[in-house]
Every structure is written in structure tokens, then in C-alpha cells.
């Protein structure tokens, strides 16, 4: 019962934010594309027709250099980006939260773990991803693995600093004094309170993963079998006449806009949620 009430209250506060609503609508649009791709897309994205066709009623956005329907590639591309983003942010979120809770609660463990986190955060992320990806087989699961390995440290740091402040609260002290076990305190009193912060973090991580995946694919390090938006841009970019003909209008622009709009929707949602979580930002700008 209380959960439903909480959810209702949350939704009532969230829908006050116009940015948040716009973000949600855009994201839902792409989620729909991803889920129903086989029913929406006019063709199989791997099926080959006549190459380099201009837009026509048969191919609304034309075909690429090997004759695949670009519109179908775009629709299936939503699956790749959203799946990777969702999977990576959830898994690295779980790992990051577990480490964050433990390192905030147990001091020695926290000290050592934070040195590892420091090392991770000091190394620039994209060059590291590029180097690892260049040495591994370019497959979607390898990419996901790399993104998870590099994603958890930031979550851990954020959750840890929240736990450090939560553990000095009166109700936690009280629970400890009456002899509640550590696991009970962590799960019952601390986890629910870091949850809002975690949701914001997941959204931001998801948008970082989408940028990273499309950047890697753009550089030619993506999974060659999987059709992602970044991959479409890669083949468009290396095509000799992309800039000096009209090709860019249907080959490059739509794929780029799909990436941009997805990141935009996540940014807006993240901002709206952050306003709800951070009381000092709340109520100052409602947009």
C-alpha cells in the first residue's frame, strides 16, 4: 500500500517538471521503436537491395553503400543502443551500489577500495575503452563487459559519500545501539535512502554508455554484425562523397539525430529527477 502511495506522490512531483515530461515522451518513443522493431521496420536491416538509392516510396531514407534500407537500420539501431545502455547501467549500478554500501560502512575496506576507484577515475575513459576494444574481438558482449568494468567506480564513489553521511544519522545509531546486525542496517535503513540518488546516477550512466557505444562504433570498433546508430555513422563517414553530395541528409543526419534525441531525453529526465532529489535545487526553477 505505502509503495503505491509513494509512487503516486513521486509521480505527482515529477510531472510538475516540463523538461522531465518531454524527456519521458522522447524516451518512450525510442523504447517503442526498439521493442516493436520487427513490426515497425519495413525491411530486415540486413536484407540487401540496390545500393546507394535515394529516398523513394520503397525506401523512405534510401539505401546504404551495400544496399540495406537505412530506415530499417535506424529502427533496429534503437534496440542496440537502448539495450546496451539499460543492461550496463543496471549491472554496473548493482555492483557500484554494493561496493558503495560496503565501503561506506566498513572503514578499512572503504579505504582500500577508494584507492582502486581513484586509479580508475584518473585514467581517461574513452582512450582506455578504445585500447581494450582494439585488442578484444569486437562483439557486443565484450563492449558491455568493458563498459561495466569502467562504469561502477563512479557509482561506488557517489553511493559511498552518501552512506558516510547517512551512517551518522540518529536512526542508524539507534538501530546499531539496540544491536541490529550490519546487514539489517544496510538493507533496511541505508539502501532505501541512497535509492533516489542511485536512480539519477543510473540515468546519467545510461547516457554516457550511449555516447561511448556510438563513439566506439563511429571509430570502427563496434560489433560489425550488430546494427547500431554509431555504426551507420561510421560507414557514412568513411564514404568518400558523404560531405559533398546530398547523401548526408538521409544517411548521416537521421542516425545522428537519433543518438542526440536519446541522450537529450536521458539528460532531461536526469535533470528533473535531480531536482527532486536535491532539495536546494527544488522549487527554484520548475520547467
Amino acid at each position, binding site marked *: 500500500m505505502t509503495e503505491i502511495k509513494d509512487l503516486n506522490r513521486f509521480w505527482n512531483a515529477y510531472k510538475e517538471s516540463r523538461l522531465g515530461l518531454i524527456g519521458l515522451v522522447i524516451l518512450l518513443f525510442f523504447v517503442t521503436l526498439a521493442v516493436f522493431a520487427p513490426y515497425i521496420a519495413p525491411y530486415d536491416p540486413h536484407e540487401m537491395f540496390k545500393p546507394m538509392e535515394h529516398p523513394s516510396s520503397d525506401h523512405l531514407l534510401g539505401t546504404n553503400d551495400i544496399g540495406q534500407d537505412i530506415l530499417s537500420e535506424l529502427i533496429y539501431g534503437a534496440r542496440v543502443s537502448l539495450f546496451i545502455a539499460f543492461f550496463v547501467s543496471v549491472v554496473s549500478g548493482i555492483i557500484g551500489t554494493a561496493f558503495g554500501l560496503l565501503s561506506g560502512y566498513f572503514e578499512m575496506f572503504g579505504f582500500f577500495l577508494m584507492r582502486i576507484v581513484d586509479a580508475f*577515475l584518473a585514467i*581517461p575513459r574513452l582512450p582506455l575503452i578504445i585500447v581494450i576494444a582494439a585488442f578484444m574481438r569486437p562483439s557486443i558482449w565484450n563492449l558491455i563487459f568493458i563498459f561495466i568494468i569502467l562504469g561502477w567506480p563512479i557509482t561506488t564513489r557517489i553511493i559511498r559519500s552518501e552512506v558516510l553521511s547517512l551512517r551518522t544519522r540518529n536512526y542508524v545509531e539507534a538501530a546499531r545501539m539496540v544491536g541490529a546486525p550490519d546487514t539489517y542496517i544496510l538493507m533496511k535503513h541505508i539502501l532505501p535512502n541512497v535509492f533516489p540518488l542511485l536512480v539519477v546516477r543510473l540515468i546519467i550512466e545510461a547516457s554516457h554508455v550511449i555516447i561511448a557505444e556510438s563513439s566506439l562504433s563511429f*571509430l570502427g*570498433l563496434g560489433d560489425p554484425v550488430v546494427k547500431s546508430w554509431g555504426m551507420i555513422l561510421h560507414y557514412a563517414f568513411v564514404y568518400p562523397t558523404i560531405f559533398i553530395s546530398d547523401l548526408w541528409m538521409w544517411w548521416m543526419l537521421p542516425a545522428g539525430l537519433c543518438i542526440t534525441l536519446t541522450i537529450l531525453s536521458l*539528460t532531461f529526465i536526469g535533470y528533473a529527477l535531480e531536482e527532486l532529489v536535491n532539495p536546494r535545487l527544488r522549487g527554484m*526553477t520548475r520547467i
Partner: protein
Amino acid sequence: MHRITKITGYVAIILVVLSFNFFLPRLMPGDPLSFLTGAPGMDMPIVLDEETRAKLLTYYGLDKPLSQQFYDYMLGILHGDLGWSIYHNAPVSDILIGALKWTFLLVGTSTALYMVLGILLGAISAWNRGGKSDVGLLVSLLSIGSFPPFFLGMLFIILFSVKLNLFPAFGAQTPFMEYSSLLEEASDILYHLFLPVTTLVISHIGGVYLLMRNSMLNVIGEDYILTARAKGMAEWYIMRKHATKNALLPIITMIALRTGFMIGGTILVETVFAYPGVGRLLFDAVMYRDYPLLQGAFLIITLVIIAANFVADMVYVQLDPRLKHD
């Protein structure tokens, strides 16, 4: 004390990065040379002649025991030896030194510009919190920040180079140009720098802006601002003297963190504009599976970022008096 812990931390990180660079090619299935001849999914096959193969074998030193390989590798790095580039057929360190100046120019100019603009706009936004200019700035900066840098760069090339013919689409200088004066050379370099810098500034300004705005909003909620108001000080004076100064502190840490992030954008932007920096080298190295160059470029980029972090840490200690007595 604080300083010693920090310095030890940085030394440890550098050792981790060096070891990572050493072990990565050796831990992958097969030996490092097998990537070159049979890597799946690569764009172009590489045919190794005997001479290059021999050079690569000495670079990796695979015939020696691992400890000897590691020792040689570390010794080589201390002497500035980063191996031999297969594609360029030249020492990796020579190629990197030539490219570094362009990357420094690009990253330095962009960082200076987006920091100043971001801080300024963030302060203006927080100052007018809830007002029209705040909402306008917030929405527009969040929106343009959503464009991936490589896409933005491609759009700029089409708009400003191809359609309007205002700026060059690639390179850092006009090829085969004979400059009559230093001024002419400088203006040609700036002319080529314009589009890549604009792309980087636009894709990074949002983060600083948002941080500055949030930081200002937090400071404005502090008691000492209330006190200043109660004393009847002018609003602009409070904002400038009290709020902005204190809000700037978290931004300093941000510069270092952002520089790491920025490097990612630089790789993409240099690739799109064929700008001859380290990022472009990294892309070429990936395209041609030039592993020694790839690893050398990665190493240089990482060491520079770590150095930037270190400087920011030291500056931060100077600025925040609370840390000095630790």
C-alpha cells in the same frame, strides 16, 4: 600529510597504467602478432614483411622470459622508447611528439574557452534563478550538450565548410603553404582551429555550466549569504564577492576531471576534422591495427591527464585553506 598521500597515489596510478599497457597485448588470446595477421572484423588486412615482423618481435620481446620483457619495457619507457610504428614505419615517440603540440593547442584553447563561458553563464543563470534567462540558458545548454561531438563536427563541416565555405574542413594548416610572415602562419592555424574548438566547446560547456549553477544555488542557500543580505549589501556585490568566489571551488576539481573527459571528445573531433593530433593518431592506429602506436598514444594521453589531475590537486590545496592543515 595530505600532499604525501596524494603523491604516492599518483605514483601508484602511473605504475598501474604502465603495467596495464604492458600486460594488455600479452594477456589476450594468441600472441600480439597474431592480431595483426588474423584479427576478425578488421577493415583492412595487414601484410607484414620480414623486417617489420622482426621489429615487432623485438618490440614485444616475446622470445625472452616475462620478467625480462617487463624490465626491458620499463627501461625503454624511461629512455623515451615507445616502440616502432608499423604503419608510419618510424619510432612511435617521434610521431607522438609531432602530434602533441596540435592536441595541446586544441585542448588548451577549448578548455580555456568553455571554462570561462560555462562559469559565466552558470553564474548568470543562478543569479536569475527561475527567471526567463535561467530557463532559456538551462534548456538550450542541456540540448546542445546532447549532440555527440563527432556528429556535431560532421554537421559543422557540412554547414560551415561545404555550404557556406567559411572555414576549412580538415587539417591544422593549409597544405604546401609558404608563409611570408609569422602572423600569416598564426592566422592560418587559428582559421583551421576554429571549427574543432567550437565543436569541443559546445559539447563540453553544459557540464561546467550545470555544475556552476548548482554550486551557486547551494551557496546562495548558505547562512552567510543571508547575513550579507540582512546587512543590506547590494545584491550584485553579494553575488560577486560572496557567492561566486565560494561557488568556484568545486569547479577547480572539475577542470581536471573534465580534461580526462575532454580527451575523449578530442579523439573524435580530431578524427572528424582530420586534425593531426594524438587523437587522430589513435584513430589511425585503430584503423590500421598499428598496436605499438595505439599503445604509445594511449600512454601519452593518460600520463598527460594524470599530470593535469596532479596539478589541479595541488592548486586546490592552495585555494582551500581547510586542506592546508591536514
